[in-house]
């Protein structure tokens, strides 16, 4: 009761503190949601292009932060390997898309429209590429630059009609676009170059033996099964992106700890005489610590409630302003953040409770 009364006695200060705590929680929730969005978005293209093997140039492990160059003759050799049904070429490169005077960078994937392998994993508007002068763009990229199906964009000197928008193709720092393989090769200026092959096997083919044959018979390649290649790319994304998120989340946690500890300490110092009187009257130590702990939890729980209330709306606003930011929240994330905040609450209360030691009951007689 005393704990609550003290907080209510300074409503503006308590509300500002709750607001600060809520903002820190929103920051942590948002970073986790962005991470999940980026983690999914970055590798969704790979995850959904399910195939038996991904074949890249020797020493290449991923497509997010690596270069792989293979020739069409590699494809011929792969197709001739016993047990292989298809070896579908994909050419990936960063290029600039122009729309009027506006331009933006896109990760362009050239694929074989006849097999669809390596193409857009999901079309959310329009259709996929069927002709050489067509392009499919990631939907968040299109939203950011106000591009709709039917519009014409330029890549280098070529005009391409946007025929569809895709999802699962937003990798946060870059978005995918899709054209026919021949157009991609023409745009890059090397008509016999590809980045990788998606290899599918004939029914009943022995995976290990096909894999061995490909490595032995086709020079200069790396062969990954789908799960390994997906894992490689997830690892690449996490190693480049996660440290930044951890650093920002840690700053949020430190700020939260500081805000909470500061307020609790100020309250203790302001209520110093009350605490001294309680000590003189025989208050057990756990009662005084309990007052501080109760205040810490009231503030934190109010902050958590506030954060949970504003988080969905805030995310929607951010996604509206920056469509390429894909935030995917989850109950697990929310629960994890709540646990972290409760841990911080305990830690802050412990830090503040240490101030109680310097309050002596004799002060009540002053």
């Amino acid at each position, binding site marked *: 009761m*005393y704990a609550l009364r003290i907080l209510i006695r300074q409503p503006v200060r308590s509300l500002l503190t709750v607001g600060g705590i809520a903002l820190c929680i929103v920051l942590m929730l948002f970073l986790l949601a962005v991470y999940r969005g980026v983690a999914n978005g970055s590798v969704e293209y790979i995850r959904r292009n399910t195939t038996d093997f991904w074949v890249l140039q020797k020493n290449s492990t991923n497509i997010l932060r690596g270069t792989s160059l293979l020739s069409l003759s590699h494809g011929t050799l792969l197709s001739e390997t016993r047990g292989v049904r298809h070896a579908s070429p994909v050419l990936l490169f960063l290029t600039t898309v122009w729309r009027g005077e506006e331009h933006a960078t896109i990760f362009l994937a050239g694929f074989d429209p006849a097999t669809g392998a390596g193409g857009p994993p999901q079309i959310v508007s329009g259709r996929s590429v069927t002709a050489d002068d067509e392009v499919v763009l990631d939907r968040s990229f299109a939203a950011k630059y106000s591009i709709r199906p039917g519009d014409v964009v330029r890549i280098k000197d070529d005009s391409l009609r946007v025929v569809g928008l895709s999802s699962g193709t937003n990798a946060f720092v870059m978005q995918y676009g899709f054209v026919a393989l021949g157009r991609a090769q023409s745009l890059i200026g090397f008509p016999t170059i590809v980045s990788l092959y998606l290899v599918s096997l004939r029914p009943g083919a022995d995976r290990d033996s096909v894999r061995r044959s490909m490595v032995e018979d086709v020079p200069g390649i790396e062969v990954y099964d789908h799960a390994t290649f997906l894992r490689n790319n997830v690892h690449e994304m996490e190693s480049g992106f996660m440290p930044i998120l951890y650093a920002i989340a840690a700053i949020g946690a430190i700020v939260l700890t500081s805000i909470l500890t500061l307020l609790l300490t100020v309250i203790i110092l302001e209520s110093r005489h009350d605490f001294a009187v309680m000590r003189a009257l025989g208050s057990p130590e756990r009662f005084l610590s309990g007052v501080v702990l109760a205040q810490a939890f009231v503030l934190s729980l109010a902050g958590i409630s506030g954060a949970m209330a504003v988080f969905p709306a805030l995310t929607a606003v951010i996604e509206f302003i920056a469509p390429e930011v894909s935030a995917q929240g989850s109950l697990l994330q929310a629960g994890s953040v709540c646990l972290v905040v409760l841990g911080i609450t305990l830690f802050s209360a412990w830090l503040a409770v240490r101030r109680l030691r310097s309050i002596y009951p004799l002060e009540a007689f002053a």
Partner: protein
Amino acid sequence: MNKPVVELKRAGKTYQAAGRGSVGVMDVDLTVGAGKLILLLGPSGSGKTTLLTLMAGLVAPSEGTVAIDGRRLDAMTLADLQRLRARRIGVVFQAFNLIDALTALENVALVLRFAGMGRAGALPAARKIMEDIGIGHLGAQLTSELSQGEKQRVAIARAIANRPLLLLADEPTASLDSAHGLEIIEILHRYAKEAQAAVVVSTHDGRLTAYADQIVRLSDGRVSASVENAPPR
């Protein structure tokens, strides 16, 4: 003499400040029996408050011993002392020292909680105590809304809530006019008799001597005189 509640034997307290010792009290021999009200008289700085804090177990004597209800305080742990203060000792302060954030009733209930009573039982018990000393109507008021006299009555209700064996009052009438001051000393005197408690009151208000069983005069930290008195029954 009745059973002694508090016994000081050659008790003294010296404070260390800036490397020099400053005497609070020294060589005090004092025994207060159950049902007795003792008045500590003396000017400011004579050691009255130091003597009260020694009896409350809030400071350890530099020399000699202090015992409450036959138990020496220097043999107790901090937790024992806390329990002793919560259950066996009541304190009335000169400046009342009520918790402003709480109502009068909650202030009284607070010490019942300190003594181990549950939340559900503390409020009704506190209400009963306040009614017994005629301030039941003040229960719902925040203490900041009370007059000086009302505050001191609430402070006394808080001090006697746990029926302490030893009630210590530090200048309890100093902030009150003479009429209210006499009311307060009457309440303390009545409590000593009814609860068979030892009540020790520090004051420099000479009008209160009529209510004392014993008057102890302090000067420069020493007992300069101690006389028996015959208070009204």
